[in-house]
């Protein structure tokens, strides 16, 4: 099993209010799975994704990745875990405006101490896979939303991560571009990538191999799709 979440809780505390974002989450995800997480706004989808991506810590519970307990790691170890194992795709693409598309994608490799020629080679391959090689020297503002999201996917896959986390990757795209993005994700999954995707779109969730429904910080349904 690649991922094992056990009794994960996430509480947000302020001076006056304590809010439970996640409550006793139990989830197992195998290597090569494509899991879609659905649910209404505020149900804890993104919080769960953040915890899976180790950019947020659970208040309680256990998160094991490839057999390693991650909740005990310090910030530096988690940063190392992220750069070696994870790829992120965001709804709003989150490309850095000051960098070219090529540089944005390369950023995922910069912190791994990979030599520059090797980085360039991998970036070229990743851009070819998502069909934006001709936009390499452009800045994000010069690209359409669909192209930006493809660039973001290239950034997520360039490091060949063990897990790709996608937070509403089609949320800001029109139908055609959304379909293209889903096609790319499906292809990546077919090639062996493990993907966890948060989405509001039932049709896109149906393209995943498993669908997890959340409500009020809890997983209420976990079903395998027939593809």
């Amino acid at each position: 099993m690649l991922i094992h979440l056990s009794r994960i809780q996430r509480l947000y505390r302020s001076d006056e209010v304590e809010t439970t974002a996640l409550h006793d989450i139990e989830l197992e995800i195998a290597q090569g799975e494509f899991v879609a997480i659905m649910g209404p706004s505020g149900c804890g989808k993104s919080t769960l994704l953040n915890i899976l991506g180790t950019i947020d810590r659970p208040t309680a519970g256990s998160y094991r990745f490839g057999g390693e307990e991650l909740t005990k790691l310090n910030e530096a170890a988690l940063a190392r875990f992220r750069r070696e194992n994870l790829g992120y795709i965001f709804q709003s693409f989150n490309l850095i405006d000051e960098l070219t598309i090529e540089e944005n994608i390369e950023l995922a490799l910069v912190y791994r101490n990979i030599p520059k020629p090797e980085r360039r080679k991998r970036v070229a391959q990743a851009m070819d896979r998502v069909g934006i090689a001709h936009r390499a020297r452009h800045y994000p503002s010069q690209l359409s939303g669909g192209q930006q999201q493809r660039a973001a996917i290239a950034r997520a896959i360039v490091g060949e991560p063990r897990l790709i986390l996608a937070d509403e990757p089609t949320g800001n795209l029109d139908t055609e571009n959304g379909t293209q993005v889903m096609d790319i994700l499906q292809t990546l999954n077919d090639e062996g990538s493990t993907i966890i995707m948060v989405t509001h779109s039932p049709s896109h969730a149906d393209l995943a191999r498993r669908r997890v429904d959340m409500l009020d910080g809890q997983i209420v349904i976990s079903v395998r799709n027939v593809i």
Partner: protein
Amino acid sequence: MIASILRSIGRQARRHPLYVGLNVFGLALGIGVFLTLALVVRFEYSFNTGFVDADRLARMDEHWSEPGTTPYESADVSFRALPFLKQDFSEIEDGVTFTATNLNVEKNGQFTHFSGRMTDPGFFRMFSLRLLQGNSDTALTRPDGLVLSRQAAMTVFGKPDVLGKTVEINRIGQKSTYTVTGVLGDAPSPGLLDNVDMLLPVPPQDRLQRSCFLFWASSCGEILLKFHKHNDIAAVNARLSDFVQHRASGTAEDQISIGADGKRVYALSVVPLKETHFHDSQVEDTANSAEQYVIDGIGLIGLLALILGCANTVNLATARAGLRAKEVALRKTLGASRFMLFTQFMGEAMVFSCIAGLSGLVLCEICVPAIASVTGEAVRINYYFIALLLPLVILGSGLASGLYPSLILSGYNPASILAAARMPACPQEGGKQLCYGTCWLWRNFLSQSASLSAH
């Protein structure tokens, strides 16, 4: 890492030239003003410090407090004290008289004015000064001996190689012929020998006839002393009252002494030569003095300019932190550790500081000659001093201007930032409003700055 920092700065300069320009200009202005005023302060503090054994050199001052008059301190003293000082205080290694005099040299029917000092033969030995030409031990032993500055030699003879040549000098209406026995090179400056063109021995008849050599109540120049140890200055000062009573007091009819109870109206003190520049603001018959609090104030203004330059950089960097929050969150999700980001941002601050430091040096190059011209002080850029100071200023400015924004930026929580990026209004984290992390940050910074200003 360095390449990445330089690329980042290059990108910022391309994409945000106004930000980079203001950042560098503000800090460069602060550093430029600081360097300029630091040079001025250093100059004012360096009077008479260039002499060998400067710590052991001092000047004798006298204090008068006669009934019905305002008490005053004077650097011009009675030379009658000198032989008694040498006799009574074993702490004194050497001592000379030092009297300013105006000299005129006639050349081709025209008089050229020179600033001269009459002193004793031991002057060069006491100040450990070596002559470009001539023997410093004997240059002032003969009554017609004359030591010229190199510039005076050039003015009078048109060349520095003038040993043995004679000069006719008109001093207080009397013409005398002097023989050049020495040429003085660059004397330690600023200090005692600034603008001194010629040094000549005290005329023998002066020692016999001039009142300041004979009477305690008459004065005509300075007594300069050299002590065996620096601490001897204070030790001698403590015993000068008894010295005055013993040596300067006499009877009411006595013309040589200052009366029956001399120490009631007359006192002597020894002032370390290094302190005379500031001390002389309270002393009569002195030139080229400065108030120490004014100089310290100028130094403080320089320091404030540097702090303001740094604050401006912190201000701009903090204001812009909001724009970089998404970048930070993204870099963290891609695996950058806090240390990596901190190093990146501190590196950028250091490079900005380096650029500003060099720009500040250019500003200093422009300002220092202007200040020297306006004030008439011989302030100039000392590159050895700058080479020591500028790296420290760059390092300090880089740390001061980069530490706070770097700590804040590298400490952003990526989950909060990415959540904020999706929300239309400022979200909350731990009771603090985020808006890409800037709202509370900016407010905190401004409130802290306001608090600092208030103090």
